[in-house]
């Protein structure tokens, strides 16, 4: 598979020489912690609604960075990756913030109604 073949073969060689993937373990633990914090806050009604929302959103944003840096090899190309990387990343951020932001906006009618 001439040119294209190099990809899977490289991955395989990579797998053989791999060290223990501490990065992933740390990332996994961090994402668990960042999920448990908002869950506990919501379950036990520790703080009022508005700060609660901000706290949950802060955890979610931190979660994004955990994903990008510890799982998704965000820094592995050292800025020399193909141009569409930045395009897809921009779209990803746009959609993530859009879905969350617009959902909050759409669902605030409850406050007005009640």
């Amino acid at each position, binding site marked *: 598979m001439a040119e*294209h073949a190099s*990809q*899977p073969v490289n991955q*395989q060689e990579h797998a053989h020489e791999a060290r223990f993937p501490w990065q992933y373990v740390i990332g996994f633990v961090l994402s668990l912690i960042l999920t448990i914090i908002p869950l506990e806050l919501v379950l036990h009604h520790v703080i009022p609604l508005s700060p609660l929302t901000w706290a949950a959103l802060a955890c979610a944003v931190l979660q994004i960075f955990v994903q990008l840096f510890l799982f998704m090899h965000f820094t592995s190309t050292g800025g020399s990756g193909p141009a569409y990387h930045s395009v897809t990343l921009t779209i*990803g951020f746009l959609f993530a913030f*859009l*879905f969350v932001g617009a959902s909050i*906006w759409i669902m605030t*009618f*409850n406050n007005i109604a009640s």
Partner: protein
Amino acid sequence: MPAWFHQFADKYLMWQEGPLIMGSDVLILLASIGIIFTLTYFKKWGWLWREWIVTVDHKKIGIMYMIAAILMLFRGGVDAELMRTQLALPNMHFLNAEHYDEIFTTHGTIMILFMAMPFIFALFNVAVPLQIGARDVAFPYVNAISFWLFFLAALLLNISFVLGGSPNAGWTSYPPLSELGFSPGPGENYYLLALQITGIGSIATGINFMVTILRMRAKGMRLMDMPLFTWSVLAACVLIIFAFPALTVALALLLLDRVLGTHFFTMLHGGNPMMFINLFWIWGHPEVYIVILPAFGVFSEVIATFSKKPIFGYKSMVFALMAISIVGFVTWVHHFFTMGSGADVNTFFAIATMIIAIPTGVKVFNWLFTMYRGRIRMTLPMMWTIAFIPCFAIGGATGVMLAVAPADYQYHNSYFLIAHFHQVLIGGTVFGMFAGMYYWWPKMFGFMLPDKLGKWAFWFFNIGFYVCFLPQYALGFMGMTRRIYTYPSGLGWTVPNFISTIGAYAMGVGFIFMVAQIVQGIIERKLDVTGDPWDGRTLEWSLPSPAPHYNFATIPTVSGRDVWWAVKQGELPKSSLFPAKKDVKPIHMPKSSGRPFILSVFFFIGGVGLVFGLLPLDIIAGLGVAFCLFRRSFEYDTDYYIPVDEVVETETTLGRLQA
């Protein structure tokens, strides 16, 4: 009959439902025995396993997707005919309310997730790697997992009909109706788990094809050289990757509500059912673009080929596809304007929805300009494409009417809406899939389909379509709402409903003609020896039909668009696309694996376990899935090389080898 059997038959086999279900039980049993007997008698089990179940070849996976999609089109179509029969006249007693609810739920769910989705994936698999000069998709093993997850999820949803009861809360499955309190029993669980399982497969397919298109194009093929079908797949993949997670979350939370007693979407204890509606449509609206964009891609290919012209306004076509895939994400509230989010919210989403009409209009005009002064050949793919344009124009115009938020308070959930979305989903997606099926059929199977029965199918289906759905616009204005199972006489609804039912039957007849056409084609087997029966323009037509399993003996060198056309016109040397003996190297290919199938069977078992709350099955399934993933993680023998001699021999037989 022992008491335990009686109880089992009543609770799970639903024998108390009467002869309809009992008859289905018997038919399914007979059909299963028939299939098992035939496979055993002709000793085809080994063939089925080796050639199909373990395959990771995108061409075979595409064929399996298409067969499954046509079977599901039949199932969803039967549902539709049953509903139309019930509504043909006022006060009918053909179906009772509960059966009617179950049937419209499964009709919608099956048509969107188990007919339209596999049909587009069939065309992804059949066409994309061949169009960009790749030997397979980026992750062939994952591709097989995607297919089998879809297939077993479809099976899971379909067995609900005879085992425990179908879901009946609508294909949108809004809480609180779909919560445990109002929908007890396994039906709703079937819906949630089947969608969840097939959703995993769909996300994987989205990632797979995005990587394939971005990373595996032939030498010299820039993004702006790609055929428009490939562009449309890329746009659909963007939509899949960002939309499906929202569905996953919505379904998972609703399942937690039902199985573990949480309160995400309940009416009490802090739950909010409207959040489900919001999440569902964050997925649901992009979903309709997921199924329409590949159809747009098919139309672009078909119109260019059968007009013998390059597509008009290629760049604007690409721009329109990408614009739809981005703006398509900010329109979802138009499905629930009446929920009352306020004027600001409704205005924003109404305007965003209307904006979508602009890139879509650009595409329609580009298709028309491509045909203008072209040498048009009226083949079956072209007929479905030309039928699509007026149909989609009407559907689009009524869509803009629905997008007007204040007016939507009048149309919402009326038959006007039903007519609108059938017009765009049938007139757009289904026509597109049929066009694509006819167009790539020779490439998939190596033989041509006879025209005559196909034309009968086309006319019955098309005329039937308008007869069925145009009266429904009127019914909507007359106040008929969706999901009602019967209506009194004297409202003026009788005549339009009766006409509509006649149209639905005509569409059914069209489908039968299409099946007959395929059967006739299989019997006649008029082989396509050229590999290019339509005088095509793109790379897939430079290959023999069907393509050898490694696709390209040497990866072609591409410069510009429509390279195969350029080669046929003598503008490019033939040697840029065809292999030369000295350039043939051993070909690196993925090995077949039975694990995707086994993994998906464990998912199926887990699904059944969760549907009925059977913990042992869930444990078995969980361990099975974990074991499959574990084995894959430590598997290094995943690929092999086809030796040069074998490639040279195959290519010589095909007469493709250049000196």
